[in-house]
């Protein structure tokens, strides 16, 4: 079995996955849980938090799978991109685990991980396909020709769409991050009530910075009482604009690349309107949309692992090249 760790951003996650892509355990300690645990105090955005949580999630994953480290033959870890300190907690823990058991270690890119969430059973997808990766930190259209590699067909030039959702939610008074709440509020609103044009860039790139600013101006023009009454309409119209931009570009890319299958991954793949607007696409299961370690284990199957002990000098990387 493959044991994987993921600590690139807010989530501390561990998973056990078989080489056939069956999930035996998938544990995520999220910032939201911690927030509740500490009585609503905003937790630190610091690697210290990953450090506190990494061993508990390792133990929980082994316990959920009813396994011991004897059942593990490969350790995998997210190497980047992400916050350096956060990544190093996962990388150090994974090195220690692999080294004590004399196991090989597979360093995994976080974006490869998201794509590989589509390779997990029982519903795995075979390339070639176009993958829409939409999250808080990334928005990309990936041309996937084989497992373990992809070409970038389009990407955001400014804000990620998940960020546009979260900041839109904040403008509507839903708190931050509020993408999921915006999705819920949008169900009670009229998606055609307001017009929020999304910039159309040449090629297959996205831009979500301007639409956020349009929402800001729409909110500013309303009186406070009126804003309260129109909040659902604003949420529905804003969500419609974001989803439409994603869907139009995804369709255009699929045509241009001549691929029939489309996959959708990343936190925004959990958005109900996006899922409904791409009924022919394969969206990752909800539990695998946000950051998790099962997808890292899945991606590790298509990475050349570093044999013991060559990984001891392995470093994390902050930014995508």
């Amino acid at each position: 079995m493959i044991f994987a760790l993921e600590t690139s951003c807010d989530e501390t996650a561990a998973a056990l996955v078989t080489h056939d892509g069956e999930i035996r355990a998938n544990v995520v300690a999220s910032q939201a849980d911690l927030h509740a645990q500490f009585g609503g105090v905003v937790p630190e955005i610091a690697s210290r938090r990953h450090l506190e949580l990494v061993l508990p999630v390792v133990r929980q994953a082994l316990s959920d799978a009813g396994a011991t480290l004897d059942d593990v033959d490969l350790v995998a870890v997210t190497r980047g991109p992400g916050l350096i300190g956060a990544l190093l907690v996962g990388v150090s823990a994974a090195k220690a685990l692999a080294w004590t058991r004399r196991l090989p270690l597979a360093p995994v890119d976080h974006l490869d991980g998201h794509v590989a969430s589509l390779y997990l059973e029982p519903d795995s997808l075979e390339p070639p396909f176009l993958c829409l990766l939409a999250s808080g930190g990334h928005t990309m259209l990936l041309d996937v020709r084989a497992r373990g590699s992809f070409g970038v067909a389009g990407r955001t030039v400014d804000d990620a769409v998940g960020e546009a959702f979260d900041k839109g939610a904040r403008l509507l008074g839903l708190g931050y991050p509020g993408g999921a709440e915006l999705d819920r509020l949008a169900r009670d609103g009229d998606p055609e009530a307001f017009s929020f044009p999304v910039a159309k860039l040449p090629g297959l790139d996205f831009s979500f910075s301007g639409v956020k600013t349009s929402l800001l101006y729409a909110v500013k023009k309303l009186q406070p009482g009126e804003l309260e009454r129109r909040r659902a309409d604003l949420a529905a119209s804003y969500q419609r604009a974001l989803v439409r931009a994603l869907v139009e570009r995804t369709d255009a890319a699929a045509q241009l690349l001549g691929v029939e299958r489309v996959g959708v991954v990343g936190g925004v793949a959990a958005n109900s309107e996006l899922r409904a607007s791409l009924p022919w696409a394969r969206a990752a299961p909800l539990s695998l949309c946000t950051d998790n370690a099962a997808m890292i284990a899945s991606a590790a199957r298509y990475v050349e692992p570093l044999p013991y002990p060559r990984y001891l000098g392995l470093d994390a990387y902050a930014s995508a090249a």
Partner: protein
Amino acid sequence: MQIESASPEETEAVAGRLARVLLPGDVVTVSGELGAGKTTFVRGACRALGVTQPVTSPTFTVGHRYDGVSHLDLYRFAGVSAAEWGDLEPYFEGTIAFVEWPEAGEDALPAPRVRVRLLHVDEAHRMIELETAEPELLETMA
């Protein structure tokens, strides 16, 4: 110094002029409301400093590091504790660092050499305010 910008391209150009007079180790804070153009400003600075990759918002990821330039965003921070500073410090080592939403880190971050404030004038226009203790620095901006 105040400069009015009529477009994202003009905002990028002003940032480029500032970036070319900065040195490694300098910290520039970039404040302003949502949609004021902070990431646009930092993109212009990065371009002038030779960054060719996409320069996107680091709100979610907290920090992006390019060759000689760091781009940070403290939007998600309530304050900056010692542990959080430990995570941010590497981004300031040997780089010109641009910090969006710096308010949460005012007590913890190195003193900025330049403070940039971006203000909404109307939907197209922004006022760019550059503040520094060294007025001669801004005079050298081409």
